[in-house]
Each structure stands twice: as C-alpha cells, then as structure tokens.
C-alpha cells in the first residue's frame, strides 16, 4: 500500500466524491438501523419486559395472541412439569374512554393471574390482586392520564379506575395496561369465559423437552424472541426495513464498483507502469483494493457516527428510534464489506492491464 497511502494523502480530492456518497449511505443506513431497532423496541418492549422465557400458544396461532385461546387443562400440563413456572396471561387490544374528561386511549390489555409469577412484578401486583382497575404504561401519564380517573372499556360494560403507572412498555405500538385476569376475561368474554385466556407465560429451564410438553398440553410454545413475530406489524416492519437496508448496501456496492472501475480505467497507464517496474498483479490489486477499502472504511465510520448523532437527536421524540451499538456496527461492517466487494468488479480489469502500456505499446 506504499503508493495507495500517498495517493490518498496527496490526491484526496479524487476520492472526496465517492467518500461523500458512501458516507451519506452509511449515515442513512445507520439512521434506518436506529429506526428499525426503535420500531422493534416500540412494538415489543412490553413483551420483552415480561419475566418469561417462553410463551405457549394454541397450535397454529403463530405467536399471535388474538388467534390463541388456551384453557386450564393445558395450563395444568405445563404446571406439572418440574422446574417450570407457568402462569396464564390474557392479551387483547381495547379502547378506553375517560369518564372524567381525560383523553381516549388505546391499550394493549394484559390480564395476569394473582397466583402467577407475573404478579410478582410490582407494577402488575395491584390489578392482579383482584382490585378492578388498570396500571398503565408510564407514557400515558405524559398524555394527560391521571391516577383515579375512570375509563370505560369499549365493547364491555366495565368502567375501571387508573391505579397507577409503571414502565410496562408497549405491544404492537400500543401502550400496555395491566389488569387482573378475571377483569380481562370479563372484558374479553363477558360471562362466558369458561376459564379461557390467550397464552401461558412460562419460565422454562434449559433441560425441559418443550416439544414433548407441547404435544401433551396441546400447545405451540415459542421463545420470547420468537414471540415478537406475533406482534402486530412486526414482521412487515422488520421486512420493510431490512429490504431498504439491503437496497442501500447494493447501491453502495454499485457506487463503489463504478467509481473504482472508472478510477482503474483512468489509471491504466499507471498500473502498466507498476507492472513494468516488476510489480505483480497481486501487488497492484492489494494497492488498489486496499486504497478503496480505506476510503470506504473512513467514509463509513464518519457516516455512521453522523447517523448515530441523528438517532441521538431523534431519541425521546415522537419517532421511535433506538441507538444500538451492535446494530450500528453490523450495519457499518456490512457497508464496508459490500463496498469492498463492489470494488472487486475492477479485479479482472486490473489483472488484464499489460505492462507494455507503460511504453504506449499494445501487447
């Protein structure tokens, strides 16, 4: 890289445009990573905050709570497995209208059992204990909801008071509200609950044969992470973001490839000279690709840092973003790798340059 480094230092203007474009792509890619991570967080933070390792759903429900109905018999099968903690959970989306002039709110309503380990959470304990009421995600306090206000749950005859706020997160981008399982059942099923609920929240030790218990209990168990897929819009959002980021990577690779090809054509005589001086094609390739790798790396680092700064500015605002170091580094690494891969399109062109070109002679 003897020549490459000096060329970069003294002829930097030649690389400024491609560096700027790669830097902007890196910034955009980083911001999109932050948005994607933010959307994932916003869609699943409530689920992630639950102290569970697995969730058992009804078969073929694909981790979607609204498609899953479980009863006490399945719960009993899980409860009997040594080492496993199992607790029923009801999940549904409701609209609640204030009867005290407060705002109308959408809620992801989680009904938890007073006897289950989910009620060990301090934020879930008051409603689970049987008090008819709601403990709301703390974000709702910022929207003007107050403790003591009463909310009529749409589609039911129930009016429930706000008992408190906690960090409950959200599910499917809707703030979570905890209530007792009994209250949840009366909202969801009226007087015909027959012991039904949405899923079984589980703490499963590593040595338990989950599939075997599933067969016995008639359930379909997902890890907590797998259960994110059931969050409304989760798969579509992540697929869209992944596709956009993939397009950015391809665009970046094409830009770098096109730039390096043009640069190689411009440098044909210089490459011929290096070969005439006795440099192997490998030497010339290392020099050229090493040079473009430095440009792509530097531009990506600067662009990713700028993108991280943008995420930092957006954080806390209405747009859900999350600055994940792992996500930013992965995105940047992919950009560098695809950029270098793009530069390989000039590989053959470099190896085909004949040293005789240094004398202006066609080989």
């Amino acid at each position, binding site marked *: 890289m*003897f020549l490459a480094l000096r060329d970069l230092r*003294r*002829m930097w203007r030649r690389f400024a445009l491609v560096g700027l474009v790669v830097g902007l792509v890196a910034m955009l890619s980083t911001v999109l990573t932050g948005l994607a991570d933010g959307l994932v967080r916003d869609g699943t933070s409530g689920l992630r905050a639950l102290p569970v390792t697995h969730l058992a759903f009804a078969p073929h429900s694909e981790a979607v709570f609204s498609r899953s109905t479980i009863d006490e018999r399945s719960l009993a099968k899980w409860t009997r497995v040594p080492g496993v903690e199992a607790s029923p959970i009801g999940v549904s989306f409701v609209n609640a209208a204030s009867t005290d002039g407060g705002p109308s709110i959408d809620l992801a309503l989680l009904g938890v059992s007073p006897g289950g380990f989910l009620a060990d959470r301090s934020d879930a304990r008051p409603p689970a204990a049987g008090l008819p009421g709601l403990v709301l995600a703390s974000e709702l306090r910022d929207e003007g909801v107050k403790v003591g206000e009463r909310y009529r749950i749409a589609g039911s005859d129930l009016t429930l008071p706000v008992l408190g706020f906690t960090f409950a997160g959200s599910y499917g981008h809707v703030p979570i509200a905890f209530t007792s399982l009994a209250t949840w059942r009366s909202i969801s099923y009226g007087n015909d609950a027959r012991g039904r609920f949405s899923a079984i929240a589980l703490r499963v030790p590593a040595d338990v044969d989950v599939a075997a218990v599933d067969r016995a209990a008639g359930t379909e168990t997902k890890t907590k992470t797998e259960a994110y897929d059931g969050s409304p819009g989760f798969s579509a959002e992540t697929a869209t973001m992944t596709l956009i980021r993939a397009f950015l990577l391809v665009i970046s690779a094409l830009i770098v490839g096109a730039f390096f090809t043009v640069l190689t054509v411009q440098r044909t005589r210089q490459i011929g*000279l290096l070969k005439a*001086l*006795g440099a192997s094609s490998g030497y010339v390739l290392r020099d050229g690709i090493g040079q473009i790798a430095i440009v792509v790396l530097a531009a990506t680092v600067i662009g990713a840092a700028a993108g991280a700064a943008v995420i930092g500015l957006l954080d806390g605002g209405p747009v859900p973003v999350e600055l994940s170091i792992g996500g930013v580094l992965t995105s940047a690494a992919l950009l560098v790798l695809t950029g270098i891969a793009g530069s390989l399109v000039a590989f053959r062109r470099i190896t085909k340059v004949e040293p*005789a070109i240094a004398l202006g*002679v*066609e080989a």
Partner: protein
Amino acid sequence: MSTSDPAGDGLGLRGIHVAVPDGPGTRTLLDAVDLDVAPGEVLVITGSSGSGKSTLLAVAGLLRRPDRGEVLVAGTPTAELSERRRTALRRERIAIVYQSANLLPALTAREQLELVGHISGERRSQARGRAAQLLEELGLAGRADQLPAKMSGGERQRVGIARALMARPTVLLADEPTASLDGALSAEVAGLLAGEARGRGLAAVIVSHDDAPLAHAERHLHLAGGALKAITTVAG
C-alpha cells in the same frame, strides 16, 4: 544483427518477429530481428515514428511477448518462462527510462525510488538509504521531497533515470528519453544516461528519433521496415 557477448550478462534478441493488426490484415513491425548488447555498451536505435522502436523495447524489456523469437536477459532464455517468472526477471534485471519520465504524480522524487525497493521487497530503511544516495549522485538531493508537478522537465527525467538505477538492473532500456527536452538539456540527460549505464556496466539500449543520444553511444542502429538496417560505430 548480432555483435558481441551473445551469452553473457547483457541482452540478446534472436529472430524477433512482431506483427500488429492493421485494418483487415496485419503489419509487420519487427521481422527476424537479432541483436546483442554487451554489459557496459550503449546502443542507440533510431527510426521514424511508428517504425517499431518502442515495440522493440517492449519485447526486450519483457513487457510483451514477440510473436516469434527469443529474448535472452543475462543469458536466460525467456520465451518459455511463465508470466510470473518474466515479471520477476524484469524486476531483478531490467529497468526502463521513459519518455517524459512517466513518474507517478502522488510520489516525491525520493518515493519514486523507494517504490522500486518496495516492489522488490527491500527493507524500507535500506531502500530509503539507497534512494538518497542515488538522488545525491544524480544531483537531485535538494529535490528529494518534491512532487513531479513541481519539477522541471530535466529534473523529472533525471529522477526517471535514478528510479531505473534503483532497480540495480543489468539491462537499461530508454524510450525517447530526450524527446521532451530542449537542446542543451537533451544533451545533458543523454550524457547522464549513457554515463551511468557505462559506469555501472549495464547493457543499455536507447531508442530515439532525435540525435542527442548518438554522441554517447558505442553503436547506432536504424530500424526501418521491421529490420535493423544500419550499424554505425559512433564512439567507443
């Protein structure tokens, strides 16, 4: 067209034939050319533009293969060598001085020389020392850190000569080394090139369409119609 030292450390061409595409057919640039250049000998080849001088130099410098014939570098036949081995032989034995020097714009005078050491895998400190010494010998010590854009034509050509010598070649080839220089400077550069070649015992071939190098050559050949037609002993 053979003279002295056919098997020694010099340069030998045997039955070199090169034809290039020309419209629907081909045009013969070199036709059964034989040539030997002994160590310490300076040979000047003249010829009109397009006569094949540069092609002859490219063949002699292992930059291109002839259609037929053999090139001997320091007694080593090269026709059957792999491209990798030819590159190595070029790196170890042959150096070329180009028209307009052909320097790399991003490198200073000193770095133009150090690059040659870097390509051949020489230790950085050693290459740096040799580069400084060569620049000193060629009167360029004060220009060592200048980029080509800041040098005069004569300085650039002297750096080109220093870069060629940096390779410690046994064969020195020069392609129109004085073409871009005016009268006095042209004679100075030609004298420097020939003097260095002779002093270091290099087999030197200078192709030129001007007369400046003739005064410093042992032999003068003229290339026309694909053959080296005239031989004149100029000096020696």
